[in-house]
Each structure stands twice: as structure tokens, then as C-alpha cells.
């Protein structure tokens, strides 16, 4: 019998990413991974792009992974897993394996939006039966907070620093979830660890759908966001409630908003506690803060329209 998604039931399950890994205190990524792996009772094999999650969970003679896990390089978590999944199908066809196994790739935004986009696009187009999960913290955090194409407009990073002439990143984020949905894959979704039930339901649903699935999950990084270590979930909630990070899914081309905030809070409330946006609250950068709010509003409206159209 499958485990129900209730705290009582879930608390009895063993973590598949165990304690003792070396992710930073307050990091969103291990929380996201634990939720993802708790959401299913199926055996899971994971691949992992080079990045914080990878370098901190499998060092020298130790591993925090209680499931079969493979890391090969930065840009190819999807391609690597597509190989594992293909071998599984081949051996299953030849009668050498009979178990039902699920496949999940984990990559950060650098390894997914940027350097891994081709590998991801290829794997999704080929139709491998797997879920690709991007834990999106909005920059190359492992190498020291460099700008990625997931870095939000206005953010201060080490390669787009807020200087006296240029006030941080002047480009908007790439909308990866929509890009993946445009591959006409059966399931693409966005989730946040603040809304754990929504996140886990989506993972569970994705596992029951045959073919390639993509999930983009917000993953606060207190080092890069320059926020308090105990603020990850609060900030995730503000990201959702400001509609900076709306929760939705696109199943067979039908868009559904899975959570609508009772009251849409200004995006400044999400940004204010984060050092990476500090400069936007100076009077000379008011225009940029306004531009961020306008963009969030525009995208939220667009998403609502898409959801209405079905």
C-alpha cells in the first residue's frame, strides 16, 4: 500500500537522503530532495549534476544517498540518466530485470537553465521515462554566487555585482518551466518547499505519468540570497504569495494554477529580507524595483490567462 501524503504517514518513512551531508545550514536543496524522495514508495535511481547538492552529499568514501545515485559532470544530469533509464528498459525487455524503478535527475539552475539545457532538452524530446528536477536558487551558488539565466532581475551576484554604475542584473529570468512545457512533455510543474503538500503531490503525480516530466522547484540559498539561515521556508512562502514563484502545473498542455495566494503581497516583501536585493531599496534604484514588480504582475496575469484557457 502506497504511503499517504500525511505528516503522520511520512514521518514513519526513512529518508533516502540521509543526515550528515555537508549542505549549508538552512539550504533549501536537501529539504527539496527529501520531499521529492519521500513523495513516492517506488525504488528510485537518481542522477545529479555537478553543484552544491552533488559535492556535499558524496565525498570520498561517504555517501548520503541511500538510493543508487550517479554524478558524472555539470551539464549532463539528464543525458546521464537517460542512459541509465535506457539500460533499464533494455534489460527489462531482455527479461533480466522485472522491478518497477523510477528515475529522477537533480540539477541546480546553472546545470539546468544554462549549461545543461541542451542535454535536458534532448532527454525530454527523446521521451525517457524520468523526472528532471531543477532546484532553482537563482545563481551559481557552488562556485560563489555567479549570475545564471535564472538569476532574477536586479539581483546582485559576483559576476553582475550591484556597482555604482550598473545596479546588478539587468536581464529577466529565463522562463524554464514554460520552455520545458513547450517540449510538449506530458507534465511540467513549478513547486516550492513552503508548500510541501503541493510539491509532493506533484512528484507523486509525475511518477504515475509515463514519459519525461520536468519540475522547477524554488530552493532558497541563504549564502547567495544573503538571508537568515532560518528564513528559507518563510522566503519560499513569500516568493509564492508575491507570485514571483507561482505554483502551477501543465499537464498534457493544460495549465492549472495549483495555489492562488489569498492576498498577493508586493514582491518587495520577498526581496527586502535578502541582501542580494538591498541596493534596489536605495532611492536611485526605485525604477528597477518597480520594473521587478511590473514583470511579476505581467507574468502572473499571463499565467492566469493561460490557466483560464485550459
Amino acid at each position, binding site marked *: 500500500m502506497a504511503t499517504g501524503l500525511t505528516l503522520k504517514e511520512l514521518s514513519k518513512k526513512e529518508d533516502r537522503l540521509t543526515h550528515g551531508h555537508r549542505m549549508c545550514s538552512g539550504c533549501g536543496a536537501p529539504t527539496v530532495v527529501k520531499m521529492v524522495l519521500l513523495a513516492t514508495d517506488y525504488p528510485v535511481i537518481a542522477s545529479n549534476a555537478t553543484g552544491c547538492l*552533488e559535492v556535499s552529499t558524496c565525498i570520498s568514501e561517504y555517501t548520503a544517498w541511500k538510493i543508487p545515485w550517479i554524478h*558524472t559532470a555539470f551539464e549532463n544530469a539528464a543525458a546521464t540518466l537517460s542512459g541509465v533509464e535506457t539500460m533499464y528498459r533494455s534489460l527489462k525487455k531482455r527479461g533480466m530485470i522485472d522491478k518497477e524503478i523510477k528515475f529522477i535527475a537533480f540539477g541546480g539552475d546553472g546545470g539546468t537553465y544554462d549549461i545543461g539545457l541542451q542535454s535536458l532538452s534532448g532527454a525530454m524530446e527523446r521521451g525517457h521515462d524520468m523526472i528532471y528536477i531543477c532546484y532553482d536558487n537563482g545563481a551559481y551558488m557552488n562556485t560563489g554566487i555567479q549570475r545564471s539565466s535564472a538569476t532574477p532581475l536586479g539581483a546582485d551576484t559576483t559576476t553582475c555585482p550591484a556597482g555604482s554604475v550598473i545596479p546588478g542584473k539587468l536581464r529577466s529570468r529565463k522562463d524554464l518551466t514554460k520552455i520545458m512545457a513547450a517540449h510538449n512533455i506530458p507534465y511540467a510543474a513549478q513547486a516550492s518547499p513552503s508548500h510541501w503538500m503541493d510539491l509532493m503531490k506533484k512528484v507523486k503525480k509525475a511518477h504515475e505519468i509515463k514519459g519525461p516530466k520536468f519540475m522547477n522547484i524554488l530552493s532558497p540559498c541563504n549564502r547567495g540570497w544573503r538571508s537568515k539561515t532560518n528564513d528559507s521556508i518563510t522566503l519560499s512562502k513569500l516568493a509564492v504569495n508575491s507570485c514571483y514563484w507561482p505554483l502551477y502545473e501543465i499537464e498534457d498542455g493544460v495549465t492549472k494554477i495549483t495555489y492562488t495566494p489569498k492576498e498577493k503581497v508586493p514582491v518587495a516583501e520577498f526581496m527586502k529580507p535578502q541582501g542580494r536585493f538591498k541596493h534596489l531599496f536605495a532611492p536611485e534604484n526605485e525604477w528597477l524595483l518597480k520594473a521587478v514588480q511590473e514583470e511579476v504582475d505581467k507574468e502572473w496575469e499571463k499565467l492566469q490567462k493561460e490557466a483560464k484557457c485550459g
Partner: protein
Amino acid sequence: MAKVVAVTGNEACANALRQVNPDVCGIYPITPQTDMMQRFASFIADGKVDTESILVESEHSSMSACIGAAAAGGRVVTATSSQGLALMWEMLHIASGDRLPIIMPVVNRALSAPLNIHGDHSDAMGARDTGWIQIWSENAQESYDNTIQAFRIGEHMDIRLPVMVCLDGFIISHSIERMEYLEDDEVKKFVGEFKNFLPLLNLEKPISYGPLILTDLYHEYKRAQHEVMTKVKDVVLDVAKDFEKMSGRKYGLFETYRLDDADIALVILNSAAGTSKDVIDTFRDKGIKAGLLKPRLFRPFPYEEVAEALKSVKAVCVMDRADSFGGYGPLFMEITSALYHIKERPVLINKIYGLGGRDYLPSHAELVFNELNEIAKGAKVKNIKEYIGVRE
């Protein structure tokens, strides 16, 4: 019973792969390899093999997927050339570092720029230090035979390393030659069942592939890779012995041609060895003791055996179909390293020939042998390294 056929090198390799019937194959087009994987894709489409193919979107993903598939636990193949091998470069190190016996025919082709699709050895020489076993092939027959033997070598439980089987682009990949196929069941029996080692798909024993290893142990891991390479020679020879029993064709670490009593000799890889052998015969007819050494196993390189074979020659020209700009040709560097430890050693010169598919003609070999003949008689070496067949 052997079947005599007239086929291209690509067709020969594709048929070797068909007979092996691997579990997974990564497929991506690149000239001049394309035709090999196209043929293999037809074998899949026509049910001649039950291999699962991955029609990847780049060679980088091809090697990544092959690594994933091999780690999952099964027999994995792909093939490439030139830019494709260059794009794989990062992943080649990971395939060998993870000790995954992936088998890959490499149809040798020049590297850009300028863009050129024809045969030279720049691609595989660029992959020399990636930790792969490299076996080189003169013609379609050798390409076929080496591909079959590669499975036994790479998958040997003492080795577990990926293997490149090199053959010359167009000259061999696209030229039709007479050769002999083995029977399907003979090949199947020779290669045997794939033996798993720490497969990811074993849920009973979850394994983590690809850890972070820093200053504490990285050095030791690399030494382990070096040590396993030292065992490859013996396995190559054992496999060759078994292969000879089945096919009647003899293979070693390298081939020698009229070398035993030679005063002058060429060291030359792959297809150009054939042309050189013809020229050697004409020199022998003139009473000049010319000979040849054609390396087969290039990584690991059999330094001692090569030195032993060349030590009595007076003058040797190492022929490189690739260059290390600002250095000597890559094969020359190996041969000089091999001979350095011998007291009485031949005089060595290095010629760069045939880049980007430039024809290697008998007249080129004749010029080289004439120069070697003078050197053997005491003439001074004018240039250690020189381009031949070059338009001025």
C-alpha cells in the same frame, strides 16, 4: 566457417557490433563515422539486434548517456569521429575514471580549423591521455577483428576500461575491401555474456557513482588507473591468442613487417602501413633492408617490446598523421621515449604526413626510405621533424 565479403570499414565495424548485440548504443551522426551507426540503426529497425539505441542530441550527451547506461550495468557501444570525439573529451575521462568498459570505434578524422572531414589521427591523439585503451587498425579486417576483441579486453574483470578502436576516415571507413566475417554464433561465444560489476540497477546494494574526492585520495585513484593500464598488455595478448584460435588471424601489441634484419624502418599507424609495406618490398628487391613497425596497442603503449623490436635498426622514421604543434609528432614522442633507455639505439627522425586526408603516396615512402638509407650510412640528420607531401 568464415564468410568472405567485400565491405567498407564502417560496414565491417557495424557488423561486428551487430554480432555482439550490445544492450545500449548511443548514436549521433558525424562524418565519416555516420554510415557505421546508420547501418547499426538499420539492424535495430530490422530486428537483427535487440539493442536499445539512444538517439542523442550531441556527442557529449552520447558519451554521458553511455556512461549512465554502462554504470546501470550492461554492454554499451557508440562510435564517433573528430569534432565529436573532441566534444566528448570531458566525458572520456569520466568513462575511464569510473572504470566503465564502453566500446567505441573512432573513425579518425582531422580537427577544425580549418574544417576538414578527411582522415588523420588528430582526434584520437587528442584523446591519448583520457585513460581509454586505444587499439589501431590498418584495414577493414583489422577494424572488425579489433572491435570484437575490444569487448573481451575492456570487459575483462581485471581491466574494466573503455576501449577506442581506431580506423582511418574514408580511406578505410568508406573503401570497399575484401575481408572475412566470422559466424554470428562464433562471435557471440567469443565475446561471452556481459559480466556486471557494481551496477546502479542493483537495488539491493545501492551504489553512488561519481563522488567528490579531494587531496586525500584523488592521487591514489589516479595511480590505480595507471596500475590497471599496466595489466592491459597481457590481456590484449591473451585475447589475441583466443582470437587466433577462432579466426586464424594473429594479433600482437604491434605488427612488424620485414623488420628482423632491417637497417632502416618506418614506424607508422593504420592504413598508411599498407602503402609502406609495398614500398618496403621494392626496396628489399633493390637489396636495401627496409622494414616497418605498425603499433596496434597505442594506450597503454608497449615501450619495452617496441624498443626490443627496433633496437637493431640503424635509422628509423616515425611517421605521424597528427602534429603536436611546437613539439614533435605524438607517435615520435612515444618511440623516442621507448628507445631512450637502450644504449645502442637507432637514429630517429619524424615526418608529419597526410593531414586532413592528404594522400600518402608510395613516392613519399620512397623519399623517406632514401633519406633513412643515407642516414644509416652515416649522413647527418638535417631536420628531426619535417612535413612531407606538403605544397610549397
